[in-house]
């Protein structure tokens, strides 16, 4: 009898379960497609365009040091554009260590200074080609290295007649960034197996199912917030006023640190809004509102930090404003791990997402 009952149950349940499975898969596929079309490809397109413009401007500055100001403007635009994708630490940005090569941050051991010193001393053009950069000198080939050339203490030497290799390195970094930007965009937009298709699950790709793809996107929502809060903001703030570290800010040389934080936060908010907000809204509207409100609170708090991140962390009022940014970012991460992931059916536990 039990056997017959089981068979009967299976006959009834299987089509229902299968239909439910297809429904879930469709919801997940739609989320991936929204993320790719509305967030990922526009972001990678913007970065590739900005990096190409920086390559052109840095090449112009190589030929004519008087063009350095235009290169500085292009550098700022490129770093801001990078904030639109830097939280997407999987696939094209992860392949070939591109994430580290574009932005080696935080650099806790002065690898950038050391590697730049080696390149400048050798003054060997063969060491700064995109091919050579693919093989090594991870720290000296991206945005922070070029920021030092353009904005650092030694920036005036960029124009020095006896320092031509500084300009060669700058132009090489520009070319390198443009190459990586184009290669990544290509990976997302090629006609043959674009990366977004892989995310939806393929038999032979890195993602077995739409669920794997959605889980990867969700991990990057959480990981992006953690990186922003702890690496870009909290390590500058430090545990106390006495221990504030303005020079740990990501872009203190160019004075762009706060702009980068705001750009990154805006990008992550948009990533959430197009990708997971609809899924959460369907599962638990109140929870979706709570998350949306926290993103908005963080954006507003970032808007109140003044005049710069570097200065704000050195005054009591400024620190309070920075803490006002960190609080919603912390609450967001907790909420995503503890409530949102289970609400939208993602097998992501709070032990791995918010451990202790």
């Amino acid at each position, binding site marked *: 009898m039990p056997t017959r009952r089981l068979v009967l149950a299976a006959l009834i349940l299987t089509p229902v379960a299968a239909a439910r499975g297809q429904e879930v898969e469709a919801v997940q596929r739609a989320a991936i497609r929204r993320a790719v079309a509305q967030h990922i490809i526009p972001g990678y397109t913007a970065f590739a365009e900005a990096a190409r413009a920086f390559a052109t401007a840095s090449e112009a500055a190589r030929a004519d040091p008087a063009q350095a100001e235009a290169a500085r403007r292009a550098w700022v635009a490129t770093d801001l554009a990078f904030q639109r994708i830097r939280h997407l630490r999987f696939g094209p940005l992860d392949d070939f*260590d591109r994430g*580290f090569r574009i932005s080696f941050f*935080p650099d*806790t051991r002065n690898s950038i200074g050391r590697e730049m010193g080696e390149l400048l001393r050798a003054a060997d053009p063969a060491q700064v080609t995109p091919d050579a950069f693919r093989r090594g000198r*991870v720290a000296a080939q991206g945005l922070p290295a070029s920021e030092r050339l353009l904005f650092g203490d030694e920036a005036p030497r960029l124009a020095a007649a006896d320092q031509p290799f500084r300009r060669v390195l700058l132009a090489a970094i520009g070319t390198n960034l443009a190459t990586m930007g184009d290669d990544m965009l290509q990976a997302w937009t090629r006609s043959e197996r674009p990366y977004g298709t892989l995310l939806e699950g393929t038999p032979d790709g890195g993602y077995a199912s739409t669920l794997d793809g959605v889980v990867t996107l969700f991990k990057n929502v959480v990981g992006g917030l953690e990186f922003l*809060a*702890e*690496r870009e903001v*909290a*390590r500058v*703030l*430090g*545990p*106390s006023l006495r*221990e504030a*570290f303005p020079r*740990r800010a990501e872009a203190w040389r160019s004075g762009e640190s706060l702009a980068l934080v705001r750009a990154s936060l805006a990008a992550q908010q948009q990533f959430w809004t197009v990708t997971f907000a609809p899924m959460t809204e369907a599962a638990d509207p109140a929870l979706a509102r709570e998350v949306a409100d926290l993103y908005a609170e963080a954006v507003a708090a970032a808007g109140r930090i003044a005049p710069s991140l570097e200065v704000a962390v050195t005054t009591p009022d400024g620190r309070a404003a920075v*803490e006002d940014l*960190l*609080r919603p*970012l*912390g*609450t967001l*991460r*907790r909420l995503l791990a*503890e*409530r949102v992931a*289970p609400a939208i059916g993602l*097998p*992501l*536990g*709070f*032990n*791995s997402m*918010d*451990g*202790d």
Partner: protein
Amino acid sequence: MTRIGRRAVFGLIGFAAAPPAFLAAPAAADTATLPSGPTPGSTPAFLSAAADEEGRWRAVAFGLDGSPRFDIPLPARGHGAAVSPDGGIAVLFARRPGSYAQLLHPTQGRVGQMLQRATGRWFCGHGCFSADGGLLYATELDDDGEGVVGVYSVPRGFARIGEFPTGGADPHDIRLTPDGRALWVANGGIRTDPSVPRTRLDLETFESGIALIDAASGRALSKRALDGEEGTLSLRHLALDADGALYVAMQHEGPRFERPPLVAATTADGLAQLEAADDVWRGLDHYTGSAAAGQGGEVIAVTSPRGGRGLLIEARSRRVVSSFAMPDGCGVAAAPGGFVVTSGLGRVALVDAGATPRDLAAAWLGRLRWDNHLVGL
């Protein structure tokens, strides 16, 4: 401890806290829905913090046979627990920065008193009892982010009778040495501010280590750290093997392209990372969440919820002898024949010497999300 001792401790609590903590009415509304369990003590039992399907925080205990023992609500997310030497009292600590420590009767599941954090102090999620069960030690954070061990007198109704420094920031796990004379404390080293919860304020120059502290006087006996690992490894969870060697499970906060060993063990006078193939550490994804010694102390288990893996380490050789897969697996405690391991995805499995997880056959266990730590009752 003898049965007389157990009764003595228990009796003293009863006298000290009126009405007697464990004689008060149980949380009937929350336990009434559970099917009646077996006779307490007939099967090994385990306690963990958890979240239910509605996301409410719980303290839940179950038997190795999958039987429910108790399930009570907690005011906020819990973390680790300490069980008195005679098994008569369990204390479940709030996750850091924590405000409470909940006393529980391990077999009857009755709710005892709830300890509130002292002014300017926050619980860090771990604690342990003294050898005679008369004192409870809890790792706590002070206003400046520095670590203290809060000392609570069991016979005086868990009154907080003092504290002593841990000699570092971010204290976390704590273990009593086998001779009962000293405490090992892991100072994670990562500074936080309770007013900005869950945000680590210094991931660059933090100094993490283990401190040996005299359990009676609070005097610092020694400190050990891993040379050259400042700002990269946070030493957080502890387990003691049969010989009293301390195993330390760590988290890596350095550059992501580096993958250092995440387990260390004490040597005669120092601390050394275990050696294993790079793939072993790669599989842990920079993070370990819990550690436990098996019965007999010959095998140490370390779990990595991020890596979805657990390692089994042979204490004698200090070698990783096997590993098992469990996504989000973190809670781990000794059990006959191996370890019970729990996950935030609802799994509760017995991992035997062959490192094969076998799920406990009880559907209700799967409806809970099991938090970081599991302890045997």
